[in-house]
């Protein structure tokens, strides 16, 4: 039975990969860039899910880790001539270190206090970025257009056998989604690992978990670190896709958006989180398409978000779980 379940999972993943590979052939150039952005958000939300879905910690500050990742890439590429692709894991690792450094003391705080502490970090981020302008280029930010280390150029064009022309946006799409799928597999592995189970034990009942020997502090800090890594990678990709970084790209809204994407996607699921990422990219646009009058897109966005949370409190993932319950209960018979 287990072998069957795993091969079903493998099939699902292969299908996902196939869709990802094939999609740009059906999309316009602009849509490809949108889907690239969805990929970036997907990565960040996958990481946040490890923290919130498994360890039960709500963070409103992960935009700060994205900023850290983005600026790491920007500074390494612009000031040190490094190739942008190599900076991606470095950005992730630096963010992970920052996550551990912040997490270790901060995780002593309980739920709402911790959430508000992370909110404070998100708020402080653009201000701090602007203040240390020697390093970060201040309000103007850092420009990557002229840098040597940039791999994908706006003029990038490759003609594949068969006639399809891959543009820069397609390249970006493949870059982000390759990384996203890899990190997706990693997240899946974490979910099914002992570490993942310990985390969920902590989330469900901290006291019982502690009594069973799970070391709360190290597990939570590691979860924080992992989620920061994902955010850092996402931020790095953001810098690469935008060819620049500036403090204005990391307002509080970004951190809040990650949490919104997680809620819409559904805590605890993995693939449905992509729906959350899609929500973040498509809904604002869709709202703008309905009306450009000041404030109206925000009203639509807010109303849809509230309605979504009322109707689907467990997000898209929750909906899918509920729909497939008759199926999965046969696959997972009670022993």
């Amino acid at each position, binding site marked *: 039975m287990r072998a069957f379940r795993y091969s079903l999972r493998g099939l699902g993943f292969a299908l996902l990969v196939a869709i990802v590979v094939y999609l740009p052939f059906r999309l316009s150039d602009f849509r490809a860039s949108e889907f690239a952005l969805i990929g970036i958000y997907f990565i960040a939300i996958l990481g946040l899910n490890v923290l*919130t879905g498994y360890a039960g910690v*709500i963070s409103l500050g992960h935009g700060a880790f994205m900023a850290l990742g983005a600026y790491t890439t920007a500074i390494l590429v612009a000031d040190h001539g490094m190739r942008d692709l190599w900076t991606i894991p470095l950005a992730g690792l630096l963010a992970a270190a920052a996550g551990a450094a912040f997490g270790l*003391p*901060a995780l*002593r*705080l*309980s*739920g*709402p*206090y911790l*959430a*508000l*502490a992370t*909110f*404070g*970090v998100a*708020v*402080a981020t653009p*201000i*701090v970025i*602007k*203040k240390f302008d020697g390093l970060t280029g201040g309000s103007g930010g850092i420009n990557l257009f002229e840098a040597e280390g940039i791999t994908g150029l706006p003029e990038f064009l490759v003609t594949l056998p068969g006639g399809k022309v891959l543009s820069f946006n397609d390249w970006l799409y493949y870059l982000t989604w390759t990384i996203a799928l890899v990190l997706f597999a990693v997240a899946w592995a974490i979910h099914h690992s002992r570490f993942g189970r310990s985390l969920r034990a902590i989330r469900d009942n*901290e*006291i*019982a978990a502690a*009594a069973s020997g799970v070391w709360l502090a190290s597990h939570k800090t590691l979860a924080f670190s992992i989620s920061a890594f994902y955010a850092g990678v996402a931020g790095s990709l953001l810098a690469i896709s935008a060819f620049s970084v500036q403090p204005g790209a990391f307002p509080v809204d970004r951190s*809040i958006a990650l*949490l*919104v994407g*997680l*809620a*819409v996607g559904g*805590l605890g699921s993995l693939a449905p989180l992509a729906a959350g990422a899609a929500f973040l990219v498509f809904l604002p646009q869709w709202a703008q398409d309905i009306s450009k*009058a*000041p*404030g*109206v*897109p*925000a*009203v*639509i*966005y*807010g*109303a849809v*978000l*509230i309605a979504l*949370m*009322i109707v689907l*409190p*467990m997000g898209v993932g929750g909906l899918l779980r509920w729909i497939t319950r008759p199926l999965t209960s046969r696959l997972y018979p009670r022993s």
Partner: protein
Amino acid sequence: MADVLQQVVSGIASGGVYALLALALVLIYRSTGVVNFAQGEMAMFSTFVCWELLDRGLPYWVAFFLTLAISFVGGVLIERLVIHTVSRSQALTVVTVTIGLLILLNGAAAWIWKGEQRTLENPFPSDTFDVGGVVIAAQDIGIIGVSLAIVVVLWAFLQRTRVGLALRAAALNPESSRLHGVRVSWMLALGWGLAAVLGAVAGILVAPTQGSFDQNLMLPVLIFAFAAAVLGGLDSPIGAVVGGVVLGVVLNLVGAYIDFFADLRLPAALLLILGILLLRPNGLFGRSVVRRV
């Protein structure tokens, strides 16, 4: 020295506004366990309502109290229609709903009032008093006075009336309250209504001090209010007031006297609070919850 005292007084005044909004946050957190990220936007919306009433020719204090009444109803409606519906969901869902509310209210204000800058009438004269060399603005006295009055009225309501007692009981022990005939869910709605009133007062007091305002009026105030509430303890009304005033004074003094921190006063304040939280994880006056297995 006179300089310092001046900064302290105006710090108390701005702190009073933070305290009011922080008190609103604490009220809601204590009764419903929700961190209401939309508190600032609710206050902003109320401020616009006040502006609208004044614009239509109502005398100031009529508009003031009418706005409070409207805000109360608004708060109750939000709790009944939106918050109550998701109250049994996981924390993330509830937080997201308040975020949705934040976005919606901000957009609604921009839509209704066209995103233009408005000015709110200042009920206090712009005189200053010289008290032994210290220059104090009448406006600051006025803000401190109104804030104090509202806090006292709220205190009296909660501590000295039957309904106030029921509200406190519903927050402390909803199960037992029900057994005594308290309609707990309506008490929660009442809490949201009162919080909306507190926020409205905060907004109406702060708007004139900014010269002009738009729908982004309360975003920075909300951040400071969160900081104050966390500093004082999310479940402590006293903490909210003390936290607000302390924060206001400290921010003023730091901003005035420490140059390096002038731009960084917000991150500096947050860092300070984080430090305090490490020593007292539930804020200065918060109760640590003893978790029994």
